[in-house]
């Protein structure tokens, strides 16, 4: 126990403390002199900032859309793969591949495919798509959307494989009873499969939350900060790296903690219920 705890908490403790401390000061790499303690002023300013609420809304939208897409795809593919079929082994491998393909670098390829930097055979087509999307949603929307697509593609694969494992863990008798008791496949799915699968879905969703930001970060770094579509995460990067306003950046980042903590509470409720303790 000790080594693992030391590794995780030991490495994380200082950065987290630093972030909290920085968010309470006016720390900036541009200012003269050392940081001054300013209390909760940064948070106050944040809450009064219209840009922040817009970014928060986009972030929530991003999380909701990617999570929903990943869940639907994941559940669908897991159910498909759970049924015996001759093709199953091969298709299973195909579904596994998006996650197995090293994401940190595939996202590079993926991003440049959807936003071709050079004249290639498909760049006119992609350019048209980009302008159509940007025209409706604002500049940078297509670049942002391409990251969303990548995240869904890769995360959906992880979710599918994870939920397939979950389906395997459910005793088959339950499905056989359900077959006898229910009238339609849809009813069976809603009354039996879904509730049994729910805890695994919660875990998969939570893990996909955390990677959703990693993908944005990857692309942000890669394109030299070309995506500043208003999302809390990337805007915090922008503040920290481009303009050196570390205090604000820390405040922005920490503003997501309540959200993630809430997710964590829900997760533990479903996946690690207390009642079992006596067993």
């Amino acid at each position, binding site marked *: *126990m000790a*080594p693992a*705890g030391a*590794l*995780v*908490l030991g*490495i994380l403790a*200082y*950065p987290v403390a630093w*972030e909290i401390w920085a968010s309470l000061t006016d720390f900036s790499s541009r200012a003269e002199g050392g940081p001054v303690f300013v209390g909760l002023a940064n948070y106050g300013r944040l809450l009064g900032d219209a840009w922040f609420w817009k970014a928060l809304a986009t972030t929530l939208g991003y999380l909701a859309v990617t999570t929903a897409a990943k869940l639907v795809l994941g559940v*669908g593919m897991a159910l*498909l793969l759970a049924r015996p*079929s001759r*093709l199953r082994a091969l*298709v299973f*491998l*195909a*579904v596994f*591949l*998006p996650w*197995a*393909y*090293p*994401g*940190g*670098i*595939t996202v*590079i*390829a993926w991003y*440049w*495919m959807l936003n071709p*930097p*050079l*004249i*290639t*055979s498909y760049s006119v*087509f992609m350019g048209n798509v980009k302008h159509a999307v940007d025209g409706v949603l604002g500049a940078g929307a297509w670049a942002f959307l391409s990251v969303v697509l990548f995240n869904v593609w890769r995360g959906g*694969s992880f979710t599918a*494989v*994870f939920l397939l*494992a*979950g389906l395997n*863990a459910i005793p088959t008798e339950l499905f056989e009873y359900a077959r006898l008791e229910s009238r339609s496949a849809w009813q069976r799915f809603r009354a039996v499969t879904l509730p049994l699968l729910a805890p695994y879905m919660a875990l998969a969703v*939570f893990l996909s939350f*955390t990677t959703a*930001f*990693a993908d944005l*970060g*990857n692309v942000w*770094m*890669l394109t030299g900060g070309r995506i500043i579509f208003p999302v*809390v*995460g990337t805007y915090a990067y922008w503040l*920290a790296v481009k303009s050196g306003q570390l205090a604000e*950046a820390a405040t922005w*980042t920490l503003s*997501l903690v309540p959200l993630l903590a809430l*997710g*964590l509470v829900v997760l533990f409720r479903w*996946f690690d219920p207390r009642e079992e303790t006596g067993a």
Partner: protein
Amino acid sequence: MSARRLRHGALLLLAAVYSLFPIYFITVQSLKTPHEDVFGSPLWLADPDFENYTALFEGAEARVRGFVIIPRVPFLAWLANSALVLVGSLALTLGAAVPAAYALGRLRPPGWRACRRVLFASYAVPQTILFIPLYQVIVHLGLDDSHAALVLIYSMMALPFCVWILSAYYRHLPREIEESALVEGATPVRAFLRIVLPMSRNVLVAAALFTLGTVGNDFMLASIFLLDPEKQTVAAGLGVMDVSLEELVAVAGVNLAAIPVVAVCALFARTYVRGLTAAMLEGA
């Protein structure tokens, strides 16, 4: 019945095409000549050419073509670095996760549940600008520009999940298994190494593949913590290439680096699912 099976088959095919299409697409682009890249079709190849791949192996010297300086990349060194970081992360993650999981799942000291939760809660720390203070930690440890830094950080990221699934598995493993070994005169450590560890092989593979996925998914940290071009991993190295000039070489690099990873995953994909299932039985 047969219409149903046909529909099932069609859906399976659709899932496969959906999953594979992006990989197919980037592979097609990476095999194109510059001419075909501009005038050919994006979807298929008329004249496959491995130039982009061989360019990766031509050593680290820069070369001039026309008016353009084409930097060469030490791709083999990057591959070796990636492998080193990966193996290190795997060893450290599993080495730390197994005893922790066994302690939490089997010995259950008071507060084991809280411990496990706190560990898992570290996923809730937003990673966004964490690299700034992390860098301070790394410099303080004297690991600046060293692979050990990445090994530490990746292990930190993969550990909570690994501890979680392993401890869930150990918790539900019947106690009699070890007890019978103890009765036969084995020491607890020996019983663990010879009996419990081999039994949890599937779960170990699942944990290892998860670690692989975590390491593979990162680009940002690698590019921040490794500055020396000779020391970079594939992800960090390809990222610093001038992508707009050498897009296809970078894509070729992605594919080439993916081959061993994909092979390993294909080999262990089934075990991965089995391991996860074993950990999930009776609801983790």
